[in-house]
């Protein structure tokens, strides 16, 4: 029930990002030379590392879901016995990777601002910051959701389907945000 509702909501989120992609492509097709000038300022290797971390965080998130489906919140072995990790350990790792992505994104914004790519500078700045910025806000929302899921997990004496269900739907959201980023990355950094 909860998961069906989440997927239907995520499909509406897809349309939200459709609007942002449409804006990006429209401005790109009407701005002429501006795009090639401004995209030259992007730091591709930096963004690639950031992207890889975010994509990997989807895998760690999924490992947390497998643990949640086993109804196992805590690890049953040592800290570095990854195979025995519970949901909490995997989700904390996912949180840290997501936080790394947001920090990297902020650093990139700072670098671009120093090269005079800002939200109100020109059409490219608007398109770049609106698309990546709204995606970044979604990532931050996901990080807050992970904190709530961890909180529920720590609050529960008996980790049951109630906790597992919310962990699973949070992972749906995280995978969705990850896939949207892959789309944004291809459009902004690869396609240019």
């Amino acid at each position, binding site marked *: 029930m909860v998961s069906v509702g989440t997927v239907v909501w995520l499909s509406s989120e897809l349309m939200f990002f*459709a609007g942002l992609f449409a804006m990006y492509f429209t401005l790109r097709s009407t701005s002429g030379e501006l795009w090639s000038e401004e995209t030259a300022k992007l730091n591709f290797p930096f963004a690639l590392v950031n992207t890889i971390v975010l994509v990997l965080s989807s895998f760690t998130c999924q490992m947390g879901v497998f643990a949640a489906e086993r109804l196992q919140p805590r690890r049953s072995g040592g800290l570095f016995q990854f195979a025995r990790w519970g949901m909490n350990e995997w989700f904390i790792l996912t949180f840290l990777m997501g936080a790394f992505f947001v920090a990297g994104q902020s650093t990139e914004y700072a670098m671009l601002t120093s090269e005079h790519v800002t939200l109100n500078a020109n059409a490219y700045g608007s398109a770049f910051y609106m698309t990546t910025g709204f995606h970044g806000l979604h990532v931050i929302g996901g990080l807050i959701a992970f904190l709530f899921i961890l909180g529920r997990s720590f609050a529960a004496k008996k980790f049951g389907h109630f906790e597992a*269900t919310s962990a699973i739907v949070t992972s749906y959201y995280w995978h969705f945000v990850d896939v949207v980023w892959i789309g944004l990355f291809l459009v902004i950094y690869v396609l240019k």
Partner: protein
Amino acid sequence: MKIESWLFGTGVFFFVPVSIVYGFLTDWKEWVGILGILLVGGLAGMIGAYLGFTGKRVGMRPEDRDDAEIHEGAGEQGHFSPWSWWPLVLGLACAGGFLGLAVGFWILFVAAGLAVVALVGWVFEYSRGDHAH
């Protein structure tokens, strides 16, 4: 769940070709329509694929058969809150937030604080107090 899956999923076979046709009709210059229609196909595919996978996992449900009885669908359906004050609190926080944008920015900070209280209250409602488990 085959019917539900097809009901949503067939949208892919309509919207994706239509977006390509639209692209040709507009000389690939009008991107709002191309991407909008294409991603409506994505929307349909997302829900259709999800229902398809879920259908494979749960198998035949009573509502998929013509000869099923009402009692076969009995049992636990999931967790449903009987009532809660927290959605109202969160709604007030959102209303306060928009009021802040319209009237005075300082109200936004008060509303943001209230939103944090409401979210924490809502998320942990069934994890603490009488409902601790």
